[in-house]
């Protein structure tokens, strides 16, 4: 009977020893952490999208507290984030204008002409390597969803062969903008009412051959705009200045290609 006490005592002592060791170690080796890091972190969205350029939200929070980043460094936080972080850090900060990503392509399956059948890895970059994708148009959405995979907020989806952004879910982190091999995803102001959903710089004749929904540079929108918000940059692609646009919608009704769109 007496034998049982030896292991019990040894293990109890061993357990207590280890416990004490860890308790002491946690005090001795304690790393002083700025309490503001946790406060800032709680203001950030926590999606770890990487839009700020840091590995994740906690890395950005540390950088903000160290003073390496401004309180408005989080691009995906939405309204109020910069103000809250500014209050913690004791500096004035204002959220920027709310932006959303938008895929500037109207070339859905029925509209855009394809020059070959792409049957390989479902990845836009791979298709891009093969002669710039299966569409004739060099500025057409490849539609294989590389941006969809990268979006941390689930705001992107492929609809009828073209990527589409859910404006409410989009936090404008810009990850998709960088990911798109065609560079046709743009950040536009959330409150912009009209935009030209095509960025093909080709001449009108070429665009007609490639796609039924491409800007042909006909100048009709430019001539009809009462506020002078529309200009044809480079001569062949219309763009609308959101600051000048009054939202009358005349351009959208006059556009012969029906590619001046409003947010859905």
């Amino acid at each position, binding site marked *: 009977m007496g034998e049982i006490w030896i292991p019990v005592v040894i293990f109890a002592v061993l357990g207590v020893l280890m416990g004490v060791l860890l308790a002491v170690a946690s005090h001795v*080796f304690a790393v002083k952490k700025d309490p503001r890091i946790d406060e800032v972190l709680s203001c950030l969205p926590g999606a770890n999208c990487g839009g700020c350029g840091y590995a994740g939200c906690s890395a950005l929070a540390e950088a903000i507290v160290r003073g390496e980043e401004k309180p408005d460094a989080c691009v995906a936080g939405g309204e109020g984030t910069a103000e809250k972080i500014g209050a913690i850090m004791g500096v004035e900060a204002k959220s920027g204008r709310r932006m959303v990503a938008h895929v500037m392509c109207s070339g859905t399956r029925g509209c855009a002409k394809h020059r070959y059948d792409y049957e390989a890895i479902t990845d836009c970059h791979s298709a891009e390597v093969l002669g710039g994708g299966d569409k004739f148009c060099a500025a057409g959405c490849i539609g294989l969803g590389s941006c969809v995979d990268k979006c941390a907020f689930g705001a992107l989806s492929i609809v009828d062969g073209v990527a589409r952004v859910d404006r409410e879910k989009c936090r404008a982190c810009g990850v998709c903008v960088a990911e798109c091999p065609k560079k046709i995803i743009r950040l536009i102001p959330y409150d912009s009412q009209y935009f030209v959903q095509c960025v093909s710089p080709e001449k009108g004749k070429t665009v007609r051959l490639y796609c039924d929904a491409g800007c042909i540079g006909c100048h009709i929108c430019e001539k009809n705009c009462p506020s002078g918000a529309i200009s044809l940059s480079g001569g062949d692609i219309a763009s609308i200045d959101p600051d000048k646009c009054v939202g009358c919608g005349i351009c959208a009704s006059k556009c012969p290609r029906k590619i001046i769109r409003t947010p859905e």
Partner: protein
Amino acid sequence: MSNIFLLMLTAILTENFIFSKFLGICPFLGVSEKPDTALGMGMAVTFVMTISSTVTYGVYHFLLAPFGLEYLQTIAFILIIASLVQFIEMFLRRFVPALYSALGIYLPLITTNCAVLGAALLNISEGYTFLESVLYGFSAALGFTLAIVLFAGVRERLKYADPPKAFVGFPLLLITAGLVAMAFSGFSGFSFS
């Protein structure tokens, strides 16, 4: 000297922990998505396994054996390894933050890794001396690292494969692991002696 070399080579190749002893399969499948993270895991395991082999040798020979408590070695080793990993984590965070952030999440993950406990128990059952125990723990972990990094390389390519739907995910992963294990079993044909 050749004896030691033989021991290490055996632990790394012919008796690879993952492919012939089937220890540490959980992290092997869990953190082998990218070669980078796999290497991080391998480093953490190497670090902990070497130290735990050292410490458990001492605990067994100077605490358990004198009192005839060999039958309690498993419990004692689990206790020692778990607290040791916690201690090392705290120590590294304070004094070697670079290594701490490199090992990151993997360090606490291997607290209950069966490969670490397996190395400690094998050291005892094989009757290794102190030096042999340390080297065995170290080289078994090197074998683990080799296996997990190789497998991560294979997995990176699998991502672009287009297997039948029923095989997507774990089924394909396990088949692949089996194939790599078969490749490793080729090493057991070598005679080192």
